[in-house]
């Protein structure tokens, strides 16, 4: 991490935050300089490169080199899938009934429903990972990356189940009546309750998690989001020659003000409007994708063939099949965040006496996010043949081009979709960040405000740096959250097992009360 923070007496983990804060202060003064974007890029790149090197440290498994973090996430997802005997698949039907409210007492209404908790968590995950992430995976790893993304999505469902069950089980009701939950709480309280000897270790994990979550909120939650939204704005205004090309900081400033109005000003109307439009945009995106796929139904078998072939015997991809697998798994993890722990924060507000029910509902998050939406995006990109062999890595621009080859007006719609997804994801992640921040520094309006300003600055920064630097930083920060999270989840797996066995037994014996 940076050594230029002589004033920084805080923990090592904060130095990154201070660096960004410092950069943010430069913005008003240097706003006239056209090369500001490059300046910021030069400043962020070394930080992101250093972090990327640590987090994507490659393990030599004899036959191939695989980044540690990918092995970590896939091992976790596979373990939970086997340990809970394919809960990801066998509970899907029951979980639909939970989401519909069939098991919810109609006389106890007004609190957060399963549907609402799932919808909120989804609005934090469905976003640019689905549109830009898939494009990156397919443009660098070929069609085969899609196969591994889908597989990672299916396995990731089990990780979500486990962490979200724990999120509800160890949530806290605060003095003011609000609910706080998530890895910070199950890592500290959960481990302390079940392994008294490891209480200090659990507390340390919780704090490490909170530090990384703050990084994730800044990187993937804010910077990456505006970066891609601005990218799409350039696409619809003339690409590289767009007159707006040098004004990333200005675009970022506008978004930062809007975000600030919601998270600091508490202007609910902006959030309300976004919440109404985001699901609609998501549905429209899927619908247009399906229309393109159905109107090219003849090309579908070939596309699936390319996905399967590309997954096992790719041509011209660095690292061969393993290289493709890594790309697919990495983008899936980034898109659905399974094992990362973020969703456990969002899911923990649900009204239920059975923590397992929310875990079962959470199964649908990676399913909708990765298995459904990412697959549609990938199929559209493959069917339309939009991949440009001369360009190495492309994000949202590739998706835009693929859709535009069928519907010319689509890039404009996509800009609004990307803008709204980016906005809602930033709002969600800023909340995760605030919860982690206050977990570390203590509750308080002033302390929250400091972090919210940092989020606004990151939004501006995100629109000013190039894709590679932002992507790497975002990836590193968000994925590394899974290290403390999964260590704790492994330790607490027997508790989830006990809860699940009890619940599933009652369900199978028909002892659960069904209200409709």
């Amino acid at each position, binding site marked *: 991490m940076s050594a230029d923070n002589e004033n920084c007496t805080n923990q090592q983990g904060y130095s990154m935050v201070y660096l960004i804060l410092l950069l943010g202060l430069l913005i008003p003064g240097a706003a006239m300089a056209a090369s500001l974007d490059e300046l910021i890029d030069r400043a962020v790149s070394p930080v992101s490169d250093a972090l990327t090197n640590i987090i994507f440290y490659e393990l030599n498994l004899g036959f191939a080199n695989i980044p540690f973090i990918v092995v970590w996430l896939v091992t976790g997802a596979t373990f939970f899938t086997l340990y809970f005997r394919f809960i990801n698949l066998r509970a899907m039907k029951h979980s639909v009934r939970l989401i519909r409210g069939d098991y919810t007492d109609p006389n106890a*209404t007004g*609190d957060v*429903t399963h549907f609402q908790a799932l919808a*909120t968590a989804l609005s934090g995950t469905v976003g640019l990972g689905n549109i830009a992430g898939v494009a990156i995976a397919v443009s660098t790893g070929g069609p085969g990356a899609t196969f591994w993304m889908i597989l990672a999505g299916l396995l990731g469902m089990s990780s979500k189940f486990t962490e979200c069950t724990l999120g509800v089980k160890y949530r806290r009701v605060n003095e003011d009546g*609000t609910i*706080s939950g998530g890895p910070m709480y199950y890592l500290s309280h959960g481990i302390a309750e079940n392994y008294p000897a490891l209480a200090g270790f659990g507390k340390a994990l919780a704090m490490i998690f909170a530090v990384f979550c703050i990084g994730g909120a800044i990187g993937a939650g804010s910077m990456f989001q505006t970066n891609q939204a601005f990218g799409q704005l350039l696409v619809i205004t003339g690409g590289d020659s767009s007159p707006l090309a040098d004004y990333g900081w200005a675009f970022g400033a506008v978004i930062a003000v809007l975000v600030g109005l919601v998270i600091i000003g508490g202007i609910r109307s902006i*959030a309300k409007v976004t*919440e109404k439009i985001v699901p609609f945009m998501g549905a429209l995106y899927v619908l247009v994708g399906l229309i393109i796929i159905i109107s090219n139904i003849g090309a579908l078998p070939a596309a699936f063939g390319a996905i399967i072939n590309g997954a096992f015997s790719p041509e011209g991809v660095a690292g061969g099949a393993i290289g493709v697998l890594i790309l697919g798994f990495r983008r899936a993890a980034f898109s659905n965040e399974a094992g990362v722990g973020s969703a456990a924060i969002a899911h923990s*507000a*649900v009204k239920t006496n059975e923590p397992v029910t929310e875990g079962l509902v959470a199964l649908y998050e990676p399913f909708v996010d990765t298995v459904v939406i990412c697959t549609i995006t990938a199929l559209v990109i493959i069917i339309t043949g939009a991949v440009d062999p001369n360009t190495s890595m492309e994000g949202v621009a590739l998706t835009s081009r693929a859709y535009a080859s069928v519907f010319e007006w689509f890039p404009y719609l996509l800009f609004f979709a990307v803008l709204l997804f980016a906005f809602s994801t930033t709002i969600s992640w800023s909340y995760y960040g605030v919860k982690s921040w206050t977990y570390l520094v203590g509750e308080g309006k002033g302390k929250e405000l400091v972090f919210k300003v940092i989020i606004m600055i990151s939004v501006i920064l995100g629109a000013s740096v190039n894709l590679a630097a932002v992507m790497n930083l975002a990836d590193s920060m968000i994925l590394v959250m899974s290290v403390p999270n999964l260590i704790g989840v492994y330790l607490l797996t027997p508790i989830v097992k006990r809860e699940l066995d009890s619940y599933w037994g009652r369900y199978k014996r028909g002892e659960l009360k069904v209200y409709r």
Partner: protein
Amino acid sequence: MSGTILLGIDGSEGGARALDFVKQWTQSCSGRIVVAYVIEWSPYSFNTPQENAERHRRREEELEQAQASVLEPVVAQLKAAGFEATGVIQHGHAAKTLVRIADEEQAHMIVVGRRGQSAMKTMLFGSVASTLVQLANVPVTVVP
């Protein structure tokens, strides 16, 4: 006539007129009156994580406020007038929830006021009274 009447109120003028109607027309009867206040709420809305975290507390606040400022005074008025009256507050879709409460309480009739909104507004947002008339399993009296 004896039996249970469900009186739906919402703190508005229409609800007050419905209350007057019930007092006037059922004065001499030995019936029970269930006063219901439905707080408009949908289980399928999209919220921010912040709203969800605060939801539990807000719900309690909403219930307390509705109880104290709307329901209690009406129940007290009815009791003072010699009726056997109880109160219910629930979150949900107004018309559907009233129908469900009527079924549970085995009410013989539902009485509500109407807002008297314009045709345009009804077209856009619907009307509790007209939806109720379509859904209810017992006679509905809408007080203008």
